[in-house]
């Protein structure tokens, strides 16, 4: 009577259910390690909407072609990109981070409050293929909203993939951010559900 619910409650928090680490094949074998770590391209070059829109956005094909009409113009790997550009057909990427439609998450607000990319998306620069790092459960969201300090970083380090401060450092920075920006994340239902 008690066992079954608690077993379920436990199961629902396990990666297979939350889809953490679940690897999906993409139409184009885009490698973040290369573009982010090797080339040092800033996240916002491709995900341009992230700091002024609710949606981080997926780069239009034209963005890829900006470079790839110069470099690797013949690479077989990039054939789908060129095909997309030529036939005016969008690339259908596979979705990694699912949020239910009744959850309204705004990237720009989190960015502007000092929540870094890697805080939720993990070390994307080390991922051959991007996978979900955080459980993305409501509880997980709420934990930060209750105690934001442990998840904040200076605004100039938002896209920094290597931001790994010591506990003390994080504590200092976090509390400072909270104080300076007057950060009080909503815990109202309508903050995310409307």
């Amino acid at each position, binding site marked *: 009577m008690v066992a079954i619910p608690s077993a379920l409650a436990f199961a629902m928090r396990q990666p297979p259910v939350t889809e953490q680490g679940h690897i999906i094949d993409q139409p184009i074998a885009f490698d973040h390690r290369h573009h982010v770590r090797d080339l040092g391209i800033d996240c916002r070059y491709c995900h341009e909407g992230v700091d002024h829109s609710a*949606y981080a956005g997926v780069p239009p094909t034209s963005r890829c072609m900006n470079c790839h009409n110069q470099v690797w113009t013949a690479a077989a790997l990039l054939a789908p990109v060129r095909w997309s550009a030529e036939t005016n057909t969008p690339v259908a990427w596979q979705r990694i981070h699912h949020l239910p439609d009744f959850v309204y998450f705004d990237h720009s607000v989190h960015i502007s409050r000092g929540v870094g990319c890697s805080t939720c998306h993990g070390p994307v620069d080390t991922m051959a293929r991007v996978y979900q790092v955080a459980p993305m459960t409501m509880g997980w969201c709420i934990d930060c909203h209750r105690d934001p300090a442990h998840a904040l970083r200076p605004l100039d380090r938002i896209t920094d993939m290597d931001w790994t401060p010591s506990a003390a450092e994080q504590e200092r920075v976090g509390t400072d951010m909270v104080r300076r920006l007057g950060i009080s994340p909503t815990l109202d239902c309508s903050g995310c559900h409307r």
Partner: protein
Amino acid sequence: MSAHLHDDHRSDGAPHRDALYWRTLADSFDVPSGTREFPPAADTPPNAWSRRQFIGLMSASMALAGLSGCRLTSDDHLVPYVTQPVDVIPGRPSHYATTVTMGGYGTGVVVTSHEGRPTKIDGNPEHPASLGACGVFEQALVLQLYDPDRAQAARLNGVSCLWHQEMQEVATHTGTRGDGLRVLMEPTASPTMARCCAEVKQRWPGSRIIIHDAAGIGAHGAAGQAWRALFGHDLVARYDFSRSLIVVAMDADPLASGPSHLAHARGFASLRRARSAGQPMNRLYVAESSPTCTGSIADHRLAVSDRDIVDLLLALLAELMAGQGVLCPDQRIAALVAGRTTSAHPSWIRAAAADLAANRGAGLILIGDRQPPLAHALGHALNAALGNVGATIAYGPSPLMAGDGDLASLMRELDRGQVDDLLILGGNPVLTALGDIQLGRRISQARNRWYLGLYEDETAQLCNGFIPQAHVLESWGDACACDGTRSIQQPLIDPLHGGIAACEVLAALVGPPRLARDLVRDTWRDAFQGAGSIADAGADAHLAEVLRRGVEVGRASSLVSTAADWSALARFEVPQRSRDGFELSLKLDAKVHDGRFANNPWLQELPDPVTKLTWDNAALISPAAARRLGVAQGALIEVRCDTGALTVPVIIQPGQAEWTISVSLGYGRRGAERTAADIGVDAYPLTSISRPWSAAVIAVTSRPASHRLAITQHHWSLEGRPILLEQTLAGINLPADAPLQPPPGPSLRPAPAHGPGPQWAMVIDTSVCIGCSACVVACQAENNIPVVGKENVLRSREMHWLRIDRYYRGNEDDPVALLQPMACQHCEKAPCEYVCPTYATTHSQDGLNEMTYNRCVGTRFCSNNCPYKVRRFNWYNFADGRDPLPLARNPEVTVRARGVMEKCTYCVQRIRTTEHRSLVDGVPLRTDAVVTACQQTCPTQAITFGDMTDPASAVAHLRAHPLAYAVLEDSGAQPRTRYLAHVRNPHPELT
């Protein structure tokens, strides 16, 4: 809709079921791409599938995770643009200023578009006919755009064709003079259309442009006849309500119908907000046969038959001349007055006359478009005699294009077989033509009949050639407002069904096909004097500016001086003394207009402002008449008139003139529109050239059968409960006066603690609410409120978050109407919250009564415990199955699944978005930055919203006002939404 659209594009196996709405644009490859100026239409219902998965039955298994069923959406794609349009930021809506037209006149609107999907239409504050407000029709256009029943393809004799080739074919065989060519079109105030028509006339001198206006507004109606006779040319009267202290409306509904009603309502309201005894406040006299929005807030309403209006006017004139010593503008009028003296309604006439005489130059007598020319002439006489002309009334040139004749003339030509090619540009004349014209029968006498229409409607069925018309949101165009202000209509989206604009058709007739965009640009270039490249550059800059603002600001056409030639009076038919017995009064419908919106689910389900009837039309009869006929609500009666018979269900309408049976037009549609099918009865056949708006009733017989009318409000009495407070202007005596409503009694529960930040609150001023229901449609559009259909309305399951309650006071034959917009009151001590077992409805820091759909299990206890019964329940999967148009949905608002409760949220999506923007942009949140949908669209600005803790805010000010009260204060719920008592300004002698 969704299914239908899927079928279109199943073949390509494209990702139609993406969960991120903005990706729908990327389905561009679905649409045959050409040189598109705008990203083509998104052809998939955004979210439809994934929402079903999330919130649907399947999600049971996912629920523990509190997350979406990722496994279920494994084919869930992110589809970016190939080339992202410069002005599009995915996730941020764009706003475009454009123009929509009704009866030819333009109304400036601002359309919200999400990645190329128009989702909402609001008024353009800079446009004189809108002033930021928007009516029900304008707003409902966004739904019409996505209507699955819209015509899909051009055809000739049943086979699809290339329309422009066919037009050229017509052009070639029409011959040089084009004697057989007739263009039948709706009235238009579009310079481009005028130019195109002129080109047609130039190419074919023998052709004729016929203009048909079912609404009979202005130049094309009785008023037009009157002006032409009196002044020798077309005019349009501009009324300035903001300076009219005494308004007398005779069978007119200036506040809720007609091309300028939004401006009228705004002006009227500006003199209706008296909140202390001293302030100026207008007084409204209304004489009408059937209650209208204007009549609903009249200080003194007279229920008289349409046919008695002329006599009433004459009596008013008589009283003014005799009693008030007003000089009669002309002998012939005096003679007329002398000839007809009526003793009816003396007190009303005396009071009105006294007020008008006392406020010379500040009065306004309006005559409805349904009245004969004589009435309009008399109206002018009154206004002229009282010096209102030039003060509250100005006459300007009519911006409407003058045609070469009307349907009657076309009828004669058809009979003589003079018409070879009949080109009908919209308007569905076969439906809306006057009964005795019998266009449906005669039209076949034209050898070649082409119809440009949105739908395969009655007219299309009788035309051998058909061209799908481009929706107003799909095509370029332009129009003038009543005051001649020009504005541009720009497309928000590529034509979904390859629709063609009227001007393009005309252009294709005279030459090689040209895009409407080019036609409009040329028109405006020409209008912008000067030629040569520099001037062109100037013209383009000007055009760009107009395009940005949507209107050529401050370019109203100049006034014309009016000298009436009263000899014309003789030419007007003087209606004979009104007989006894019933009169059938026909009127345009408040929801489907002349029938053109009959296929619009929003409007069909919108409760009629007066009768609260949905999905039907009916015969309005007075309680007295009901007693006499011995019929009950919904009983079928057969009304036999000189022009034909009609079998309609009865609605017993308080305030209806005793001897008038009112039936609204535009129902009983026989076209191919599926939604409109089998709804109501068609009353057009009873109209006639001699009497376009009425018919003499020979007999009324009650049928044994009855009809189920889907009426959303059944009980009209306040039962003496503290729901709606009233006050007379003389009665309010500030500041000494104590609040109308005593403060609430003590409560066991602690006083509500307010969190940090703003505390949102709303105040609704019932003094200026005219019940036009624009807010209801705005709410529906903003919040993805589904349409449930007649059967569910009959089970009182309508979903409107905002409804307008209508109560009556006094005796039922001549009652006082009381209006009250009613939505969630966001109670501080919300009864709905503490009975919810799952925290699905809670209270936010900023004082909102939140409804969290995804946490709702649907016990409905909250609704049971709501004193205001403003909560709505998804009895079925309305959103998926019956909500016809997923593309029109607002992506900022969750589409509710079956089994969850919903209600007004104070447009929380707007609040949160504004908050987020202010955080991101680092600017402090202004309390007036948040505007709710209902507030934004309200023509009379009856709704105020803001932060009640900010002493500077209007809301705080109004809440503190002694006239402010809470509905059902005694329930102890402490609603956030407050109302201002309805202040009236009755004539002392009539109270």
